[in-house]
């Protein structure tokens, strides 16, 4: 093969972010944690410029770095979502971390490197690139969960996350190696060509698919590979939970699309039943167990599991409309979850973790605005129109109905009714119960504005979902 200069411009955002992550690291090292506001500002700036760089290059698409790296509409949409969501996350985290002496430079450095990992994952067009991105992201997340060294529960959560995360990576690698064994390639397009040829070894490939689905299931937290998720969400400091509950799911979605659909799309018949099982179990277990929770973080964790189930509905349909629906669901999920955990961060004061549901008693009397925002989020997660969550559920269920899997659709809607119960209970606590504690909420002006914008966005996307839906649809054409 003749030597080719790779098209660097496709990876410009990642290169910029890598550079800036190193700069932030240096700043942290030299200021010794005294100028934390600078570090925070610089991190936000790096993410913003990353997003701008992605945005400026929207019209180009193609492969680079000898086909290991792809830039297509999907990667653009996901990268924009990841950087913007992470900007919100870093903003919401600030005061919470400050109050707990956790707001060190390391947090920002880890966050930036983790974001870099996500971007690489999104653009990976080779099993190795994907794995590289995944590990870069995950290793940073393990460290972030463990940052609260003195908290036993956080350490336990970090341990669980690390061990099960490593197990999942192992599964994924094993599956990849089998695929390599059959197809002789790690490149996604070559794999796709090899597995769709009639003389592909379906027995080995089926085994490989099993391991890959398990690995992805672990990363998403789909039942029965969900055990780590509630414990980690609950145990990690809320700021870290916020970080690992949102953008990494978008990245995991990219992993799923690249491997299962771009790579192994022609084996749809082999993996569809497995994904149906994961989706149905996730919806049932997630929703039923969420009812029993008294801790808001755990409740949101189980609600995440159920959302993963819904998201997989779009994937299992095996149609382009279905993938677009799953993408839409992922983006809306990230937006709602950022708001949900953001609310816990806003409510948690110095030395007080507002993580029990009962802590929100009578919020509507004292803080009508924030209660209203939380109300929007809860109704949206429950899938009640006119909020964005309704369209998310509608599109995935429509995808399933369109391929005539009516039984799966039926399970989905019944589970969404059961799910509505625990979201309504949260509203009941905020609106119908009489206040217990006094709420002292003094978020800074930008947090206040952006949190409100975040929640109102959920309403706006529910009223006018057309633009985002058509973006999602064009990505998969």
């Amino acid at each position, binding site marked *: 093969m003749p030597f080719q200069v790779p098209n660097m411009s496709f990876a410009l955002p990642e290169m910029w972010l890598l550079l800036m992550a190193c700069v932030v690291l240096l700043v942290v090292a030299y200021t010794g944690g005294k100028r934390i506001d600078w570090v925070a500002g610089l991190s936000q700036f790096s993410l913003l410029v990353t997003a701008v760089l992605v945005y400026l290059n929207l019209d180009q698409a193609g492969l680079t770095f000898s086909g290991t790296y792809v830039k297509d509409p999907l990667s653009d949409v996901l990268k924009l979502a990841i950087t913007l969501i992470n900007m919100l996350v870093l903003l919401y985290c600030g005061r919470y971390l400050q109050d707990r002496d956790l707001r060190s430079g390391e947090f920002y450095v880890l966050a930036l490197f983790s974001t870099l990992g996500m971007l690489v994952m999104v653009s990976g067009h080779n099993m190795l690139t994907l794995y590289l991105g995944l590990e870069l992201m995950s290793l940073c997340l393990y460290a972030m969960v463990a940052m609260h060294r003195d908290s036993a529960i956080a350490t336990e959560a970090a341990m669980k996350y690390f061990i099960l995360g490593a197990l999942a990576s192992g599964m994924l690698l094993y599956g990849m190696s089998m695929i390599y064994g059959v197809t002789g390639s790690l490149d996604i397009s070559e794999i796709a060509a090899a597995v769709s040829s009639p003389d592909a070894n379906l027995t080995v490939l089926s085994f490989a698919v099993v391991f890959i689905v398990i690995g992805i299931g672990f990363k998403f937290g789909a039942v029965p590979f969900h055990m780590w998720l509630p414990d980690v969400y609950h145990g990690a400091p809320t700021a870290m939970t916020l970080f690992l509950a949102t953008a990494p799911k978008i990245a995991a979605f990219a992993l799923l699309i690249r491997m299962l659909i771009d790579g192994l799309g022609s084996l749809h018949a082999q993996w569809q039943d497995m994904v149906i099982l994961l989706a149905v179990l996730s919806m049932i277990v997630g929703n039923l167990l969420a009812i029993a929770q008294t801790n808001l973080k755990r409740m949101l964790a189980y609600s995440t599991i159920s959302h993963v189930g819904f998201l997989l509905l779009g994937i299992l349909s095996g149609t382009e409309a279905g993938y*677009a629906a799953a993408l839409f669901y992922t983006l809306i999920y990230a937006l709602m979850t950022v708001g949900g955990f953001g609310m816990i961060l806003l409510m948690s004061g110095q030395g007080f973790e507002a993580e029990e549901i009962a802590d929100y008693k009578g919020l509507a009397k004292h803080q009508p605005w924030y209660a209203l925002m939380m109300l929007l989020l809860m109704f949206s997660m429950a899938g009640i129109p006119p909020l964005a969550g309704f369209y998310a559920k509608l599109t995935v269920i429509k995808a399933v109905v369109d391929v005539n899997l009516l039984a799966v659709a039926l399970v989905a809607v019944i589970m969404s009714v059961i799910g509505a119960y625990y979201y309504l209970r949260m509203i009941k606590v905020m609106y119908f119960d009489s206040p217990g504690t006094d709420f002292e909420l003094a978020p800074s002006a930008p947090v206040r504005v952006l949190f409100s914008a975040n929640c109102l966005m959920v309403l706006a996307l529910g009223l006018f979902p057309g633009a985002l839906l058509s973006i999602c649809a064009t990505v998969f054409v």
Partner: protein
Amino acid sequence: MFDLPILSLLIWLPILGGIAVLLCRENLYAARWLALLFSLVTMLLSFGLYTGFDTSTAQMQFVERLPWVETFNIEYFLGVDGFSMPLMILTTISTLLVVIASWQVIKDRIAQYLAAFLIMEGLMLGVFAALDAILFYLFFEAMLIPLFLVIGIWGGPNRVYATLKFFLYTFFGSVFLLIALLYLQFKAGSFSILDYHAVGLSLTQQIWLFLAFLIAFSVKIPMWPVHTWLPDAHVEAPTGGSVILAAITLKIGGYGLLRFALPITPDASMTLDWLVISLSLIAIVYIGFVALAQSDLKKLIAYSSIAHMGFVTLGLFIIFRIFANASLLPGAGNGEVLAVEGAMVQMISHGFIAAAMFLSVGVLYDRMHTREISAYGGVANSMPKFAAFAVFFAMANAGLPGTSGFVGEFMVILAAFQANFWFAFLAATTLIVGAAYTLWMVKRVFFGEIANDDVAKLKDINGREFLLLGSLAVIVLFIGVWPEPLLNVMHASVEQLLVQVSQSKL
């Protein structure tokens, strides 16, 4: 003059008004007058629907059609016909009454209370005006949010249980509707309800779709045996909530059957009409007896609502038997028209009468803070004006000729004779049971000796309450004596529905 997008105005004006009222926060004065202004303007605007309505056609009128979510071909598609237009006017009148009724009664967070009703008004008008299935579903579900909050925040002691039960029951019903609507889109290639009417379906498909519609709308109506949320919700809801619940949300169930079940799945409706007819008769007879046993005023009216809504479903589903008999007895008359129009009149009339009954209970509850019948007695002595109104509405509820309650029930019973004698016979017994529980309640509450000192100290209704009950009395009497203006607007639509229903899709 009607180039105005009048339906959009009707939907969005109260919603914007609700947001404006919400911004008044602690300013009670501004909140009340603003809410009154918005609901009054909306009501006057809705009269424009009546005056501009062309009664000679069954086509959709005042149509607005804009693309909305282009990826899925979901449209912002509004229009009204003879079924939805009267219900929209019912909605705007009831909301205005609720705003006036809560003038002094609600003390806590009144701006939010009024805002919830205004927003709810817009959403309910949207339900009746929507001709796109997803738009319909959106309004249908979104309406639950304000009602959930109204019952939960301003309700009685057991409000949390009642409001959760209400929400989950209706949500459970409506998700099946969503699947049915998606499946129909899959078949018809569009979300327009009018296209759904034309789509061809096999009998099995129709039966499944019909069952989905029936689950969704029977919970709303509510029909026996999925009615249990209604007494709980009514008892716990504040007066305004009860009025809206009885006057309008129940009608959405009936409207849904008219708009979806009958025209989209005519063959399944015919095959399964025995199911709906028996459930309706159970509601009429059995729930009538249940009402007799109630000791709580609101519960009594709630059960009587279920019984009265039984007439609506009965009227809608006896048409198939009438068709069958008509071929045996040619020239027997137009029982099917009578049945459907009777059901419609019953819906409108029950809307006004139930609103009046709940407002009357509200009048008593505001003074005595109890709804137990046994706490009252001889109220007529201390509140003569109020007693006159209350007895009038009770009579209307029992179906006294000359009131609107008589017209609808009589039309349905008359039509039922052409379907099957026993249907008519059973339905007619309700006139006796209905009279029994209403009159017995009137006797225990209003007549006789003054029961206790509290009753003796009761003050008669003030001007505001007089206005409320007086205007409702005029409407009830008007429809009762001269239903023609109401029947006129629906003739064409009823004829078209009967054509749709009588053409098999198989």
